[in-house]
């Protein structure tokens, strides 16, 4: 009896090791493929990538249902498309813009008052790029509507103002605070009050 059980156990173990081996390998292939997809810099040639993806889907198919050649190719094409999309960049961008920091509109940036070359002095610098304004033969300098009328190269201040509405030097908020005036009256709350008396 005991020998039979031992045999049966050994056989089961062997079966288990046999059946787990192929899926493990296919997982590995898929995992490396996916990691390549997200860490790669897009310098590898694409046909190889497509083959790898097709191979991956064939391996997945081998331990389950049959996957047709066309399906595998479709998957591979989707994978290469996915790689070409700047997913990482767009995700990062979303993360950085989701914070409650809000910049000014493009119209605001466009309407900033320009400073003529004549009124710039040789020692005046843009505190963002730390270059003298007059180093540039055609300086495009703007002044912000803060108390100090701080001056910056338009090229330098524009990317900052797109995500922040403050002057980099004095931190004055350049956008009027409309938030409190714009708050709508909560009509539901009012109705609740009426119900109490009604």
């Amino acid at each position, binding site marked *: 009896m005991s020998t039979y059980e031992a045999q049966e156990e050994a056989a089961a173990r062997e079966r288990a090791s046999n059946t787990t081996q192929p899926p493990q390998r296919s997982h590995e292939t898929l995992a490396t493929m996916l990691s390549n997809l997200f860490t790669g810099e897009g310098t590898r040639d694409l046909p190889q990538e497509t083959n790898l993806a097709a191979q991956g889907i064939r391996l997945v198919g081998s331990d389950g249902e049959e996957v047709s050649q066309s399906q595998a190719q479709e998957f591979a094409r989707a994978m290469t498309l996915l790689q070409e999309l700047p997913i990482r960049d767009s995700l990062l961008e979303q993360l950085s813009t989701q914070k409650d920091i809000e910049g000014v509109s493009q119209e605001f940036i466009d309407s900033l008052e320009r400073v003529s070359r004549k009124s710039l002095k040789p020692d005046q610098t843009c505190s*963002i*790029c*730390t*270059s003298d304004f007059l180093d540039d033969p055609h300086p495009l300098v703007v002044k912000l509507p803060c108390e100090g009328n701080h001056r910056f190269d338009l*090229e330098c201040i524009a990317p900052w103002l797109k*995500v922040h509405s403050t002057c980099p030097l004095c931190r004055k908020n350049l956008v009027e605070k409309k938030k409190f005036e714009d708050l709508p009256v909560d009509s539901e709350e009012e109705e609740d009050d009426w119900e109490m008396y009604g």
Partner: protein
Amino acid sequence: MATKRLMKEFSLVQKSIPSDSEYPNILTLQPQDTLFQWKGTISGPKDTPFEGYKWGLIIDIPHTYPSSPPSVKFANKICHPNVNFQTGEICLNILNQEHWSPAWNLINVIVAILQLLGNPEPLSPLNIDVSNLLKLGDMSAYDGLIKYYAVRYGLKDEDGILD
């Protein structure tokens, strides 16, 4: 934009570190393989429990610099209420996107970190144990714990400069 500005900062740093007496506690500050990775060495400011020891700083600069702040952390372990003991991460408001200003440069950031060593902020702790000592006002325990870790992980003044 970022590269040009970092080039300017590099020449400014070469001029003022370590000769400028205005920054006696910044011992070294130099770019590594690229202008976007810097390392620095600071010495503990006078009249703080950090005095007499040195710490390395690792500075990573984003490609959006100076619109975004650099990220700075300690290279060797330091016991401070606003520094993560394990990772060296620093809790300093000007290192956040929200409080950063593109008008600041790397020297300003390191000066701010030196200020933080002498003026810890126990209300936003990254090291709760030493922060609690400060909150309770047990200054001898606070100084003692900092010095214990400074002896253990800080570099002594006679040691070479971190690279």
